[in-house]
């Protein structure tokens, strides 16, 4: 009989309850969308920040960089990468070695960078290149020149270029022209072994740049663990990047949580207004139920269950619509869809039930209805 009564109560007041259910669906929609965004924001923001390049650097230790210590300060490539691979951390997006030398053969000094060219797009996704990082011909030594270098030396893709360093020379082929808008536009990029050979530093590198996914703390933790594994080297996060990321993430989270609380409060107020009107309408029914021997607890439980059902229905429909909204928002803001987090469903439903029950406070006052007063028409 309880469920039968509940169903009849819902049907009997459907006109009035439409307002409450609309408020709950709307509230559920926005809350679910924001929560879904909140749950996925770290991943999305991290992806966005990874576009900015490395956020962690391994460099020779401070002692090695002190003035007077034998030139130049270098690291062992095998040791550094063995430590990175031993960590087996899936958060590492890219780890790329660099060896810098200054080539003066052409008259104008140019910085030549030895690196793993095939890994650079993962480390620096925002860099634009005309041409490609590698050569399709085995007999060519590929190089990518910065935009300014190309202009200065009048180089184009497929042009040969002669490099000389400390008496050694190499003929390389320009496979691409790089445009970063930064210092890289003044540099020449080659495969690491070629530069190591040219410089006479086989197996040695100047630094390793890493792109690591995660929040500020996760990156700091990773850096600390890597630093322990590489005591001779210095491992440090690039603070401007990681701190900006953490700060932005915190601000967005605060904004989302504030919005969720505001939406919940507004939804509760809307339900409150509807229920206050409904309570006035139901005074007679409650008076009658009490006259028939209905206890306050049983009658109020009936009305609360009605409100709970409304909250659950509003939360369910709202969360489905909200997840679609968050996908759309993700597409608009980040360019990719936000993944649906299924735990949002129960969370949104629970929040909407709680909001509906909070908004149903006026129905609790029905417990004070006096049947004799109602029947007297007062």
């Amino acid at each position: 009989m309880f469920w039968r009564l509940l169903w009849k109560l819902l049907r009997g007041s459907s006109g009035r309850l439409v307002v409450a259910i609309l408020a709950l669906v709307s509230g559920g929609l926005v809350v679910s969308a924001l929560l879904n965004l909140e749950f996925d924001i770290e991943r999305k923001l991290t992806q966005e920040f990874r576009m900015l390049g490395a956020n962690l650097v391994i460099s020779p230790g401070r002692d090695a960089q002190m003035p007077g210590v034998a030139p130049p300060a270098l690291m062992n490539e095998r040791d550094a990468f063995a430590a990175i691979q031993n960590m087996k951390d899936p958060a590492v997006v890219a780890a790329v070695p660099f060896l810098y030398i200054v080539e003066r053969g052409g008259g104008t000094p140019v910085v030549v960078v030895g690196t793993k060219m095939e890994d650079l797009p993962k480390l620096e996704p925002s860099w634009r290149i005309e041409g490609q990082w590698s050569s399709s011909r085995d007999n060519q030594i590929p190089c990518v020149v910065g935009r300014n270098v190309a202009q200065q030396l009048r180089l184009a893709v497929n042009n040969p270029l002669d490099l000389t360093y400390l008496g050694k020379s190499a003929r390389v082929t320009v496979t691409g022209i790089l445009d970063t808008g930064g210092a890289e536009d003044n540099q020449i990029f080659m495969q690491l072994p070629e530069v190591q050979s040219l410089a006479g530093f086989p197996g040695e590198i100047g630094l390793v740049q890493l792109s690591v996914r995660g929040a500020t703390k996760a990156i700091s933790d990773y850096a600390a663990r890597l630093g322990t594994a590489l005591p001779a080297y210095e491992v440090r996060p690039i603070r401007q990047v990681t701190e900006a990321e953490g700060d932005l993430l915190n601000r967005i989270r605060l904004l989302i949580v504030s919005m969720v609380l505001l939406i919940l409060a507004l939804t509760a107020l809307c339900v409150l207004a509807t229920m206050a009107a409904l309570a006035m309408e139901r005074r007679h029914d409650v008076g009658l139920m009490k006259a028939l021997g209905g206890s306050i607890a049983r009658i109020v439980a009936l009305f609360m269950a009605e409100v709970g059902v409304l909250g659950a229905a509003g939360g369910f429909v709202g969360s489905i619509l909200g997840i679609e909204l968050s996908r759309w928002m993700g597409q608009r803001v980040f360019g990719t869809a936000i993944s649906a987090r299924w735990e949002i469903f129960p969370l949104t439903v629970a929040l909407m039930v709680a909001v509906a029950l909070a908004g149903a406070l006026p129905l609790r006052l029905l417990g004070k209805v006096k049947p004799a007063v109602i029947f007297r028409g007062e």
Partner: protein
Amino acid sequence: MATLVQVEDLSKEFGNVRALAGVSFRVEAGEWIAIMGPSGSGKTTLINILGGLDTPTSGQAIVDAVDVGRLDESGLTRFRAQKIGFIFQQFHLVPYLTALENVMLAQYFHSTTDEKEAREALERVGLGDRIEHLPGKLSGGEQQRVAVARALINHPKLILADEPTGNLDEANEETVIQLFHDLHCEGHTILMVTHAASIGRLADRRIEFAHGRLVQVPESLKFST
């Protein structure tokens, strides 16, 4: 016969207005009492106190050995569910429940529902073909018969009827009064407020009120079935 209702020096005041002033009488089990008097004489107030819908200012109202004035809120709720069957002038059916569900509502608040028994109660008052109708689809007489079925469903000790035919046409009044007559013959105790002398004559006894006080009814004016 055992005394079912005992009213001793019962008074009820609403602010400065005295609705009942020192009323005393007894009702034996199985009696049909007609409570009569002009509007505002305290009839409905008496019914409300005896039914546990209101509390007396002073005096005693004892129904089936329970002093109604001493019951707290939950005690009054149990008392109404277990001992009283109400029938109102305005029917007071829940508009979004069918005739059957209105009867079952009383069962639900009493203990557990029994749809078969509720159907039988409606068939008994001649509404076997109106069971699934909403009150809005029933005539006044049919609605009042649903109210009678609802009042009887929990086998109450006392049936309190407040002008049950006040809103009915002559034909429906006759049907409903016949139902009360049948209930009386079955041994139910009925206290019925009525303005109609013709209905009052059908009762075993008549109690008349004026200005909240009981007016003595000469023995010669008492009616019996």
